[in-house]
């Protein structure tokens, strides 16, 4: 494993906690819905993720 590969997720790792939380949650939701070309409710879920992360 090279340092470059480690660096791939560095922008997420170095993010402020609330931003990192948003990213993690958003990616989780997107992964869950990856199988669907037109997933339903994702927009609302992501808006809620932001609101939950930044209070």
């Amino acid at each position, binding site marked *: *494993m090279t340092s*470059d*590969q*480690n*660096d*791939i*997720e*560095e*922008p*997420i790792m170095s*993010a*402020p906690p*609330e*931003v990192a939380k*948003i*990213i*993690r949650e*958003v*990616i989780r939701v*997107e*992964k*869950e*819905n*990856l*199988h*669907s070309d037109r997933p339903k409710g*994702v*927009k609302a879920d*992501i*808006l809620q993720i*932001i*609101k939950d*992360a*930044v*209070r």
Partner: protein
Amino acid sequence: MKLLSIKLFNFRQFWGEVAIDLAGQPGQSITVIHGNNGAGKTTLLNAFTWVLYGQHTGAFAAPEQHINKRAIAQTTPGSRIDCWVEVVFEHNSNRYRARRSCYLEKPRLDQPLIEQGGELDLQINGKLVQPPEEPDDKIGQVLPESLHRYFFFDGERIDQIVKSENKSEISKAIRTLLSVEVLDRAINHLKDALRSLNKELAEIGDPETKRLVKEKEALIEEKAELDVSREEIAAEIAAFEQQKQKVTTLLRQLDQIGQIQERRDLLKQQAEATQAQLDRSEDKLRRTISARGYMVFLTDAIAQFRNLANDLRQRGELPAGIKQQFVEDLLDEGTCICGTALAPDTPARQQVASWLDRSGIQQVEEAVLQMGGEVNSIERQIPEFWAEVEQEQSSIENLRRHLATLENQLDTIREQLKGSEDINVSGLEQRLEEIENQIIELHREDENVAQDIETCEAESAALTKQIKELKAKSKQQALIQRQIRAADDAIARIGEVRSRVDQKFRVVLEHKVREIFRQVSFKTQVPKLTENYELVLVETLTDGESVVAPSTGENQILSLSFIGSIIERVRYWSKKHSLIGLDSSSFPIVMDSPFGTLDENYRRQIARLIPILADQLVVLATKTQWRGEVETEMEPYIGKEYVLVFNSAKPDGQPESIVLHGDAYPLVRQSPNEFEWTEVVEVER
């Protein structure tokens, strides 16, 4: 995803229930299933794709028919025949049991067979997935449908994967595998969320707070002015109250003087009235004397007149006896009262005419009569005149006396008021009344101002409440702004990750595909992953790279190289990059007719590489496909081995068998009845 077993019930060639446990032990993760053409290898491959995705591969004939023909034939018309396939697999330490089933009601006559159902039931750790969760979604989360063709494939058609007409599909698959798709979607959906947040922010609005604060400030200012007014009014009231007090005290002190003054004023009025009456009496006396005073001097003249009249009477001249007019009338008529005609120049007439001279005394008589009346009247009036004069003189005398009395009294009062005459008590009282009225007016004004202040305070309180609410909104605003900044930051960071994935993963994946391809192919052409994640084969020439059109065999190698490398890379990245990597770090490969039409050398290379790259491999092969080099390369990794035994109803069919580990296993044998079906026999190892 690790496949554990597959069970089939009345599915195509497989009559009744057939179970196959799959190898998955590290180092022994290959399951080989031997079968002749038509025995059910493609059916088994499609059993996987049908259960998991409701899909069939290209080589699967009559995909609408799933139910075993023998089962249908042996069922009485009107009865139901069930069919299902069940796959059990593990994923992230969870056990999935996926079963898709269909059935048909056998018609009584020669009516078409219509299958029904086809739904997927999924249990995760023994718990059935129920709405609102969808079993298909759960499977998709384990291995997206768009990727399944790279893991469940027909080796003879593997070249299709990288054909140019499918480049968008493979591009999408690579993007998904490399998490680019996830990152792109995350960015797009975060942008959508940003739009929503900005909209929310715009709706809250700040100018409203500013306006209300300004309004409140104006109210505070107004209230301050009103307070000042009220203070001024209070001071004014206090001043007037002081004045009132002074005037009241003064008036109390001057009460006695006031009474005397009142008496004085009354006496003055009386004196004035008496003087006026006196004036009137004196005037009247003057007028009486001037009008009738002469009468008292006529006494002698009256006596003289009476003497003259008496003389005339005594002489008989009075009264006159005949009237001159009467005589004239007789003469005009020419007839005497005695009837004698009085013709002119007749004695009779002359006799009568002589009476005319005698009638001349008549005027004297009348004058005497008239004057006699007047003289009598004058004589009667003289005493009245004197009475009247005396009365007026008496009245004047009385009035003068009264006036003198009043003047005396006034003199006394003046003496009493000496030094205090200038004090205007009524003026003071009037002033007091004015002061009291002003105080009342000021109190009224104060009430109004107090009312205004109250209104001011109420409005101010309402504004404070509104501002407080707006401040809450403002807090909300600040919160949304923070959320926007966080979302912006998240987008930028995901974008950066995506860029790094793009730069690093793509290059590494391309490198891996090339590495595998080179191991297999002896040609100079190399695979290339374009910026759009399309997989092409390029040739390096002196003037640069050129995309070449690969042969079917080259496409097969390219496809297998690609599948092998993405499995290896994704497994690697999933472990190292748990956040953006796919949840699955292991993938099975189910290959029907592996290696297609590849040359021996290629087959050997692929057979050597695939077991190393794949976490789990299910190989469905004919005796021909399982030739020496393939068997040699894969043998060390085989964990389970099966033979599909086809029961042929063909009367003159030739039995066929395969020797495995020294034992012969039938591949085709004579059916004991008119039906054809396949059984599964596990190879003893």
